[in-house]
Every structure is written in structure tokens, then in C-alpha cells.
């Protein structure tokens, strides 16, 4: 039968895992940025989808600082996709590594 310590240990492990996942999310999201023609863009699914489906090769897009930027659709799409794939690949790998560790705090004892 489970005793209180087991529940406590389980809850701590979940908390630990959640913190590590949040840290990983924050680390990777910071990197999802590209500069294009003076504008700074957050790279996300909606930017990629818009650029992929936009029929015009040159458009004006609002960047992260609310400035309208003249955008070369293909160039920004290439840069954004490259950045997105690079970051998501790292994120996935580190997330997979995280699953292997029972508690990150245990690494202090190793």
C-alpha cells in the first residue's frame, strides 16, 4: 500500500518535471526570432502558414514592434522555416532527454 511519503515523492517529481519543461519552453521560445528587412519577427505556426499561402511575392507585415515591414515572402519564409526547424529539433531532443531522467534534482547526487 502506498504511504504518504510515496505520494509526496510522486508530487515532487511531477513539480520538478513541470518546472524543467517550463524552463525548456522558455529557453527555446526565446530563440524563435528572425530579422528581415529591419523588422523583428517571432517565428510561429501562423507566420509560417501565412507566408506559405500568401500569393503575392512582396507584402507588408507588422513585426513584433508594430512596425510595418516590406517583406520578401520567399526570403522570410526560408529564414523562418530554417529557424523554426532548428529550434524545434533542439526542443524535441531535449524534451526526449528529459523523459529519461526521473528527477533532475537527483543529478546533484551523481
Amino acid at each position, binding site marked *: 500500500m502506498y504511504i504518504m511519503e510515496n505520494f509526496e515523492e510522486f508530487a515532487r517529481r511531477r513539480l520538478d518535471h513541470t518546472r524543467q519543461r517550463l524552463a525548456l519552453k522558455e529557453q527555446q521560445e526565446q530563440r524563435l526570432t528572425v530579422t528581415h528587412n529591419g523588422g523583428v519577427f517571432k517565428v510561429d505556426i501562423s507566420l509560417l502558414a501565412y507566408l506559405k499561402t500568401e500569393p503575392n511575392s512582396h507584402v507588408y507585415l507588422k513585426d513584433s514592434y508594430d512596425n510595418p515591414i516590406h517583406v520578401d515572402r520567399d526570403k522570410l519564409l526560408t529564414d523562418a522555416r530554417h529557424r523554426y526547424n532548428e529550434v524545434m529539433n533542439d526542443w524535441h531532443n531535449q524534451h526526449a532527454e528529459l523523459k529519461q531522467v526521473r528527477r*533532475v534534482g537527483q543529478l546533484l547526487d551523481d
Partner: protein
Amino acid sequence: MTKGALLLATPHDTIDYIGFAELAAKLVQKHLGIDTLIHIGEAKPGNARSFRWHDDKTVRVPWYNSDRPLAYDLSPYDETLLIDVDYLTFNDTLKQYFGSNNEFLCYDRVWDVTDTNSFVNDATMTTAGNRMLWATVVYFRKCELAHNIFEMMKNVQANWRYNSKFWGFTVDRFRNDYALTIAHQLMNGYANGPTFNHPLGSLSTTDTIYSVHDNELLIKYKDGEKYNAVKLKGTNLHCMNKACLQDPEIYGALDAYATKR
């Protein structure tokens, strides 16, 4: 357009700011691929600060931080990244801001990498609740706005006591974050100006870098009565715990990574 990073260091009896600056500059060169300039300033007495380290020791040491308002005059670059010597660069995120339309950027939020709310008291700087900006990392272009912000910082510094009463903060020591916040607010037309689009990853003075393996840091922090850890990989970090940075093992491992090709 020339671009580079400027680091301001001052000789100190107990904290190796110059060694930190050399390490931070190597990490910038490695990840951002830009020139760096370390300006060694004069140790002007008068300001002091207490630090509580991870071993619960509290020390009060001289704090030589008066040169930061001079950064615009000191920088030889058209585009400058002004960074604290305890800021460790582990990725190329900040490179994205060079060549952008922004004239002046700094951080308005901090991310406590341990998620234990260590910086709750730094969100605001005055009794009225004005948000605080961080002078830890500043991007600026040589332009009228940046020039005026730094000139205003000098003015705030010169009239520190007056400003503390006017804005409503304690006067005991000059703090660049406060001077920057005031100057930034005023020179942006009495409004919040643009900031970096992500928070400043930070480690408080009571948490520590436990081990370093290349660009992977294991952070040890106090979680209630116990210690816990979080792993960071390729993450820029403002390491406010100077005591742990001075640990020969930690410094050595960071330096080896920074110089590794």
C-alpha cells in the same frame, strides 16, 4: 555599420569583474561573432552593495557601477550590445537585433530560471509601482534617442537624491536599472518604449551553477528546505551569483567551453 559588444569592468578587491568580463567577451565572440571591447573603469568609492550568496553568507562590498551612463561615449560601434560582465551568452538570439529598425532595447521582464519567484521585488522600482527595466543587456544604435537616454541617465545619476524623492525609491545606492528606467521612460515621450521581445533569463545570488558540461548548466537552487536542480542548455543567463562564477571549477569549465572551437 560596425557592430560589437561593450563590457564595463572595474578592478575589485574581492570580485574578479575583469575575469568575468574576459569570459563574457569570449562567449559573445563565440555565439554572436562580433567584436568585443572591455573598458576597464576607475574604482570610484562611495557606492556599496550587500550580496547574500548560496552558502547563506552575506557580504557587503564596494560597488563600482558609475560608468554605465558613459556607454554611448565609450562605444566605438555603430550598433552596440552593452552587457553586464556576469551575463553568459550561450546562443545567437541577440544577434537577431543587429540590423533591425530598433534604436534602443533593454529588458523589461526577468525570467527566474529556477521558477521560484526570486525576483518578485524587482518587477517594480517605486512605491507607486513603476515597472523596472534592466540595464543588464542593452542594444543601442548611435542615434539621437540612444544618445539622449544615456545623457538623461547621467542627469539622473548626478541628481540621485532628488530623483529618489521624486520617483519614490530608496536612495541608499546608485542603481543603473533605476536610472535607465527613468531615462527610458522620459526619452520615449513619457511612455513605455520598445524592449526585447523575451524575458531576461536570470539566476539569483542565492542560487548557483552546480556544474558545467559545454553549453549545459546544472543549476542548483533552494526549494523550501531542500535543494533541487534545473538543467539549462544553450540558454543565455544573467548569473547574479558572482561567488559561484568565481569558483575555479565553474569558471574553468565555462572558459574551456568559450575557447573551444
